[in-house]
């Protein structure tokens, strides 16, 4: 079992590397295309269907600053794949260098239990849980913005801020039962 480690390699100047893990390999491509458009610093995107990553790429692979698990909420397989991939991640990543991005959360066919399960997973790992609208160009751009703002911090490009610091502020908490706000 080869773990992906956060600090096994040296960072390079003015560069941030992001790994997008998505079992369906749909959204990651469009996201990657807009992510690399960033001009303020170099963004390298690695795409994967699941973890572990193949050994033969280990040499060429830069240090990964942020791992994003993209989960399509309408598919149980997508969630299970992300859950299984987590095992191949060094625990060091959980200190602010992992986030979950959920798509199609507003779809009618999404069982609430699955959303709750994803929330629980993110909460247990203290990771942020982002929602994205992958169907519209605006949604993709927005998802890019949000990932970049996390990536900047986790790649150490923002002075005075660390990944752990930010994730402390943005991590998901145990799902609130907002169906019944008991006002009385």
């Amino acid at each position: 079992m080869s773990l992906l480690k956060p600090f096994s390699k040296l960072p390079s100047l003015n560069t941030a590397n992001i790994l997008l893990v998505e079992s369906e390999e749909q959204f990651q491509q469009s996201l990657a295309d807009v992510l690399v458009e960033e001009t303020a610093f170099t963004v390298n995107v690695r795409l994967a269907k699941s973890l572990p990553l193949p050994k033969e790429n280990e040499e060429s692979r830069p240090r990964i600053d942020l791992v994003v698990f993209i989960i399509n909420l309408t598919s149980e397989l997508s969630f299970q794949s992300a859950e299984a991939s987590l095992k191949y991640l060094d625990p060091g990543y959980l200190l602010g260098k992992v986030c979950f991005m959920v798509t199609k959360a507003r779809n009618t066919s999404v069982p609430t239990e699955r959303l709750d399960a994803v929330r629980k997973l993110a909460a247990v790992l203290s990771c942020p849980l982002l929602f994205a609208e992958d169907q519209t160009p605006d949604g993709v751009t927005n998802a890019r913005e949000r990932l970049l703002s996390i990536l900047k911090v986790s790649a150490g490009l923002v002075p005075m801020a660390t990944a752990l610091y930010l994730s402390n502020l943005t991590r998901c908490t145990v799902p609130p039962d907002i169906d019944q706000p008991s006002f009385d």
Partner: protein
Amino acid sequence: MDESTKRLVQRLMRRIPSKMLKITLEKWGRLTEKQQREIEAVQSKRALTEHLLSFCEKNELGVKRLTELEMIHIIDNPNQEMWYAFRLSDPEDDARSVDLMQFKEQFKSHIRELVSQVSVKIRKHTDEAVWIRIAWGDTYSCPNHLKPTYVVHNLQTPYVFVTSLTSKKKLMLSQALVLSTRYQSLKDANLSGRKLTAIRDLLMRQYQQVFPTKYPSPLTERNQTVTNPHIEREQAKPAERRLQLACEAFGVGMLPQLQSAVYKLETKLRDHTDRTMREREEPFRCVVKFASTNLLESLKNCASSGIASTPVTPLLSSIPLKGKNYFVITENGPGPSSQMS
């Protein structure tokens, strides 16, 4: 003009979409130029039908001519019916030498022998296929032109494609076909679909196939699009391998469009935790049906995207391999391999 002819005209007009009507009528060539122009000026289907009825009356076009019109339409639009494939087997020595004229004569005479009231029309289409339209009747009634059977056969091939058919008529058709093509039997090929061309292509293997190879295939070249140097696919190789295997199983390019695949299982349940099921004498029966607008494409996608495991299970790859989309899977003694027939 009698009532049944009228019904036939109405039915025809309902089947042929307005925008294709003009061309179809032109091909038919039974209307005068003036009539053709008149028809073109009319918009509503209703009025069109009225016109056509009056022209038929005027030009004395009977059922015979109208069936021609229907055949022209069906030949041009073969994808509106459900087609079933059959396979002729055990050719006699002179099977190879049957020519169209001979076949025509033989078939007509054979089927007339079998059924007293039948109307047969045979046309040869440009792509070498022989189209046969059969309107069945029985001893007491005239041929029913509203529910004809279409048969498409390419001479010198063992394949026959047939639309709606009852088992009794199937028997008669098969006999007539076998006799006139010099084969010994006609068997169900267990393949059906809404697209005649698709099932024909599948059976005759007229689609782009990929054969297993150890060396890097030209596929990779084809799929290489110009990508950004900053984007890297970590699992590009396994993905390629999956695609290669999927293509080997199902082919590349435009795949024949099948609508469904049905598996009829009559097997025992091998679940060691469930005693009651294991100890049952009777096999466990169920039917699994896959349906899609383009089934092969969907299955290929499942395999190449990793939803279905690769190498593709023979259960799925048998569809293009054996040219079937109806399988009966039965228990065949001990051993893990289940028999597919």
